[in-house]
């Protein structure tokens, strides 16, 4: 008995030691990004260029999930790529650190149009990665609509035809817009109205999805889906029956940008990574692979003419009328409450 006990404890100690060791000289850089939001060969390129850095790449499905994971502690990340309003929240809660732009000379490639947004007015914390709009991806063989508005999604003739997003801001935002309100409304009355409208939409909803919605649309599972422009571009490249419409009553215009959290362990390497992501070749690879719109002037130049003229780069008029999600501060709780009420009544 005693021998066995000793043997067991030796094995246990040995196991725990080898688990803690991680005895490599390479630095591990933890990158946390949206799912399906990079050309993964770029990560290999980076590791080939900087052999002493190993990238640990993880993905999330929406900004709120990323926020919870970051806030919950336990894991520390070196680079995050959240959206505008979430960056504003992270800055407000003092979770990000200022970047040293001396380490990111490629920042000069970023178009001035995407700098100085209200989420980071002084351009201290973030480097824009991609931008896009929210719209409706539809199957031309099943839907013939002349003018898409957000109300198209609520039209009773589209029974079991719509894939909605399992995303709080997008879902509430587009519903508010369809009611003629701002996508950033913090009026309890307007939000409740939006909630009621969403509950009444139930017969139209074929599913509530995130990235898996792309596969469903490509397979021809549903006639319509709420989708980001970049994901839509990818779906269309896989299934030519699909097309994308930016609703005429106005849409959301977003920028996702690279930031470094306060508790990052390798800030300099993180800046090296951000700079690498802003090299023309890398930015072009990513833009071509994921279909989102690049804020990188060098990469934009290299894009095929057809892409530049597509919905991926809409007219300035559309963008001027589009709304950027604003950080809701103390009204975030109201959104959370309305969202939970909605989910519970499905």
């Amino acid at each position, binding site marked *: 008995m005693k021998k066995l006990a000793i043997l067991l*404890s030796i094995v246990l100690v040995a196991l725990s030691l080898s688990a803690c060791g991680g005895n490599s000289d390479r630095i591990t850089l933890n990158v946390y990004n949206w799912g399906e939001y990079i050309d993964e060969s770029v990560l290999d390129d980076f590791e080939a260029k900087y052999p002493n850095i190993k990238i640990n790449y993880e993905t999330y499905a929406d900004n709120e*999930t990323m926020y919870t994971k970051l806030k919950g502690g336990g894991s520390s990340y070196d680079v995050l790529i959240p959206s505008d309003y979430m960056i504003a929240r992270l800055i407000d809660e003092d979770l990000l650190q200022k970047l040293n732009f001396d380490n990111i000379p490629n920042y000069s490639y970023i178009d001035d149009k995407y700098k100085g947004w209200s989420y980071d007015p002084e351009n201290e914390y973030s480097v824009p990665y991609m931008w896009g709009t929210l719209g409706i991806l539809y199957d031309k063989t099943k839907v013939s609509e002349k003018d898409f508005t957000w109300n198209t999604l609520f039209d009773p003739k589209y029974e079991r035809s719509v894939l909605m997003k399992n995303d709080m801001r997008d879902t509430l935002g587009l519903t508010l817009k369809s009611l003629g309100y701002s996508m950033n409304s913090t009026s309890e009355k307007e939000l409740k109205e939006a909630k009621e409208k969403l509950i009444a939409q*139930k017969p139209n909803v074929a599913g509530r999805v995130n990235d*898996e919605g792309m596969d469903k649309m490509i397979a021809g*599972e549903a006639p319509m889906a709420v989708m980001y422009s970049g994901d839509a571009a990818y779906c269309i490249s896989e299934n030519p029956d699909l097309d994308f419409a930016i609703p005429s009553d106005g849409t959301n215009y977003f920028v996702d940008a690279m930031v470094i959290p306060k508790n990052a362990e390798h800030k300099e390497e993180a800046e090296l990574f951000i700079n690498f992501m802003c090299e023309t070749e890398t930015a072009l690879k990513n833009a071509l692979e994921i279909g989102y719109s690049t804020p990188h002037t060098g990469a934009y130049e290299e894009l095929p003419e057809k892409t530049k003229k597509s919905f991926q780069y809409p007219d300035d008029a559309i963008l001027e009328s589009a709304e950027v999600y604003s950080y809701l501060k103390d009204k975030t709780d109201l959104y959370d409450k309305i969202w*939970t009420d909605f*989910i519970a009544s*499905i």
Partner: protein
Amino acid sequence: MKKLGKAVVLFPFVLWMVLLILVPLALIAYYAFTKSDGNILQFSFENFKSFIRPDLLLVLARSLKLSLIATAICLFAGYPVAMILAGNTFKKKALLLVLFIAPMWMNFLLRTYAWLTLLEGTGVINTILDALGLGTHTFLGNENAVVFGMVYNLLPYMIFPIYSSICKISPNILEAAEDLGSNAYTRFTRIILPLSIPGVLSGITMVFVPGVTTFVISQFLGSGNVILIGDIIEQQFTRASNWGFGAAISIVVMIVVFICMWIINRFTDEPEVTML
């Protein structure tokens, strides 16, 4: 000396229990019973109070209902399988056992995701049905799909406890019964069934509890149209970052599950009931 050895051997198990069961439970209780007002933490029942609302109670009732249906199906489908596995009639017993265990080697998420591609409108099954002239059907996005997913994923957890409790029944008892003139039906109702009740109970527990709390199955196979209490809890932790509320719901679910299990155990503890 022997005592020390025992303590050392038990140490990993105790450590496991404390770190992965007791500490998380304590954390859940901590979040559920506190409320932060600015920087002041105070004891509060507020999270529990906000659970008492018709829509959430309805979601809880739906979770219990679907899980109960799935448990019943697993029991009635699993018991005969367990008997066949435990009996001597079937020659390729080992093969059958492997067939039941093999899917469990694969990740639960992957298996559920696979059903998505099999069952969706343009999926494998519908393509075959369509080719046979039977038309396409909507399988996903409703409560049946969620129950199906629960049964599929949890059936082995019903079969194996019953199987092992039937295996433990001494063949001498059955032979004695046969000698005394009881037929197969009587042997089943008077010997096999009562003696396999512990297996049935643990089978029910192992199917019912994960069924009540699942959120992956409802999200995948219910296409987000069938909301279970697990979905609400998940939303509170991942999206709404309202951990207190999420923790409170978890505790309510735990209590409800305990009550259900207690009722089932009491019900089957009555000897005359089990002997019927």
